[in-house]
């Protein structure tokens, strides 16, 4: 055992974790000293949450060791992690909404409430934090809820706090006070793992930084050694520079084209001031990290969420604020991000799933089942979907085949514009290739496609133009030859905007 393990508050060595065939963590080594703030950065699916869940005792690693203050520990359930002094402040705080702040903090302790209250007041005095203990948790802002979570952790004498994207739902002023709190904790000698998507925060708050990509730590060290550009490089795949991308299609000539969809200064819940157009036969990529507001943009365009200001036009016709049914009648179809939550009817059969978007046109009083059969067969054959038959239960299909059925359903209403939200998430490589072929085929037939994806390679491979969203705003637009891993990643993590403002 190296000296570093003895000196560190927390050390993990050679952690491996796989879910079935998918290896999520491939030998993670990480050290955290007392009073250190380690910024942990990584794209979606890099393995950050898996690693944190292992530290919280929610998952067990397949291999590797964890040391706390030099002693090897086995974190087999959350209560053991808590007793070892690890506390996770989740992205969405897990409070009891109907209880007061005080009850929320002291819930789950064995001591008597009076002593706990005294300790709590002392702790708040010491840190000079003020929060009304008699307020109900449901009336607290996210920032205040985080404070309550932090108090919970500190009341348990936690030595290691994990903050999971704490600033993702905070306003600007709340971010400032959170940073002050983090500084206080740093001085108290508490070690913090700070997970974030915002590179600029790293230089404001962290002492050390580590970047995770595809289950490995690609870069790790004191924050002074790095610049934002170096961090962006760490986020990119190693072969990004050398890799030959698939032959790009010719750039489209837009001079005479009429846009299918025009979005003009659209504001909604979670995004603002978004303007762009999509042309027939083109794929417009929309890059960004999870939570940037991309899905909200899509659900607002299709009429599920409220438009605050701005306009949406389809072929010049204003469809702002219309119901989903009307938006679909006007030719927009949406393939949602979370297949299981919003995309499929799991226990219905393939045929029912295929026709679900188009029931209005399937006979009047009674369903026209011939038409449903035709429709189902058409897309099953066209997309080479692997099904045993029309009556196979949707839930028993593989992810890729489910997605093909969902895309087929979205096309059944003969849309002019197709919005695809993370079309290949959770789909294996072979099926991914099929889905790409389908998308390219649709484009060739003149369909306009808005492709929302966190997968930069997907955007590069498919898009004719691209734009990136950062914290609810479009911060950069790219023409075909400007789309590179580097430029997309830089913009998605918010570095572009800062550069332009500097």
């Amino acid at each position, binding site marked *: 055992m190296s000296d570093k393990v003895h000196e560190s508050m927390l050390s993990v060595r050679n952690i491996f974790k796989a879910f079935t065939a998918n290896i999520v963590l491939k030998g993670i080594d990480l050290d955290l000293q007392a009073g250190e703030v380690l910024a942990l950065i990584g794209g979606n699916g890099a393995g950050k949450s898996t690693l944190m869940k292992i530290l919280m005792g929610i998952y067990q690693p397949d291999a590797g060791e964890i040391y706390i203050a030099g002693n090897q520990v086995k974190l087999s359930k959350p209560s053991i992690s808590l007793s070892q002094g690890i506390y996770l402040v989740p992205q969405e705080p897990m409070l009891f*909404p*109907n209880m007061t702040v005080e009850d929320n903090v002291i819930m789950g302790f064995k001591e008597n409430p009076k002593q706990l209250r005294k300790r709590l007041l002392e702790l708040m005095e010491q840190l000079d934090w003020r929060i009304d203990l008699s307020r109900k948790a449901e009336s607290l802002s996210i920032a205040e809820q985080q404070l309550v979570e932090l108090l919970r952790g500190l009341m348990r004498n936690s030595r290691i706090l994990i903050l999971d994207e704490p600033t993702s739902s905070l306003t600007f002023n709340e971010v400032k006070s959170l940073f002050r709190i983090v500084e206080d904790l740093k001085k108290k000698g508490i070690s913090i793992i700070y997970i974030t998507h915002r590179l600029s925060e790293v230089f*404001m708050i962290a002492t050390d930084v580590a970047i995770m990509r595809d289950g490995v730590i690609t870069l790790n060290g004191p924050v002074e050694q790095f610049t934002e550009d170096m961090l962006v490089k760490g986020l990119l795949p190693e072969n990004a520079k050398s890799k030959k991308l698939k032959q790009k299609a010719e750039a489209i000539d837009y001079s005479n084209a009429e846009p299918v969809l025009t979005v003009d200064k659209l504001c909604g819940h*979670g995004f603002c001031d978004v303007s762009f157009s999509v042309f027939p036969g083109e794929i417009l990529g929309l890059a960004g990290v999870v939570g940037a507001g991309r899905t909200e943009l899509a659900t607002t365009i299709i009429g599920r969420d409220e438009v605050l200001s701005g306009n949406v036009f389809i072929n010049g016709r204003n469809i702002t604020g219309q119901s989903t049914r009307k938006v679909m009648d006007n030719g927009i179809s949406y393939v949602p991000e979370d297949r299981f939550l919003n995309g499929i009817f799991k226990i219905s059969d393939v045929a029912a799933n295929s026709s679900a978007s188009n029931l209005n046109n399937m006979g009047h009083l009674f369903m026209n089942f011939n038409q449903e059969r035709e429709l189902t067969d058409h897309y099953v054959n066209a997309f080479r979907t692997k099904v045993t038959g029309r009556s196979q239960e949707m839930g028993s299909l593989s992810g890729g085949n489910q997605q093909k059925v969902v895309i087929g359903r979205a096309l059944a209403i003969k849309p002019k514009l197709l919005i695809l939200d993370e079309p290949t998430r959770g789909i294996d490589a072979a099926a991914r290739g099929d889905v790409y072929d389908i998308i390219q085929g649709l484009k060739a037939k003149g369909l306009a496609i808005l492709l929302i994806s966190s997968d930069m390679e997907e955007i590069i491979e498919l898009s004719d133009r691209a734009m990136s969203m950062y*914290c609810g*705003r479009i911060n950069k637009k790219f023409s075909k030859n400007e789309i590179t891993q580097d430029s997309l990643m830089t913009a998605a993590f918010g570095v572009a905007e800062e550069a332009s403002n500097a």
Partner: protein
Amino acid sequence: MLKKHSLPRATTSFVFLILLFIGVGLINSSFLTLQNIMLNLNSSVIYTVVAIGIAFVIITGEIDVSVGATLGISAAICGTMVRDGNPVQGIIIALLVGLFIGLFNGFGVTVLRIPSIIMTLGANGIIRGMIYVYTNGKWIENIPLEFKALAQAKFLGIFTWFYFATLVAMVLIYLYMTRTRTGRYFKAVGDNPNGANLLGIPVVGTKIVAFVLCGLFASIGGIMYVSRVGFITPIAGNGYEMKVIAACVLGGISLTGGVGSVIGATIGAAIMASISRALVFLGFPSDYDNTITGILLIVVVVFDSVLQITSAEKVRRQRLSAKIVHAEISTPEAVENEK
């Protein structure tokens, strides 16, 4: 009820109860006499006992629709044994039956993860069938006068002993649920089960205890039923589940769990009993009783759910809006300057 967030719902229910008395009293003044008021409260005792029991289950976020049947079978068992001269035995066995039913429901809901409405609906069917088998479909009559007299015995000449003891139990349970560590688990589990689990609170254990207490209180209700009513039909306790669920909801216990108290349940039960009697005083046939209970239940639940949906949507929108960067102030340079 609009002041839900400033006043506890139990208080508004209490005001509702007083207004009910005054309103009916204006039409028929004999409703507003002390004697009648006490009669109303004393007659609510069985609803109150069963409502206190089911309050545990509802506060943990579950439901139990087998309480009426549990009351019925406990009354049948206790009734036959009291009639045959074994009152102590009858009471003990009735309580054990209630406890066992609670364990059965709790096990099904937590360990087997059957939705509580289905689990207890099934239990309700099983128990109702067993009452017929046990009684051969016959009425149980000839309960000794001494046993029936228990329900009429008065404390200080106004409360019956039954109601007085129930109120004392309610206060003790209220203190238990608000002041002790394990007592507070019930609300925590109903409020946010995942959060409770992360803090090391035994979610499964707490829910099972809630069902067991619910079964026990339903069988205590059954024992009181034997004494108060004096005969037991095979359908004794039918419809009590709706009455006590409505009592809890009226008293401010949220069906989604985590909100409310046994004080609210007690006030709600008094309202339920008073509505039945008020109908008589207003000259309506008592046939309307269940319809009015049902309407009240739905109105209160719809009102709560509308409040909840609007506030949840508001919170979601606030959170989404907070994510938007305001370009003019959000650059790191600006932050540095502020420092």
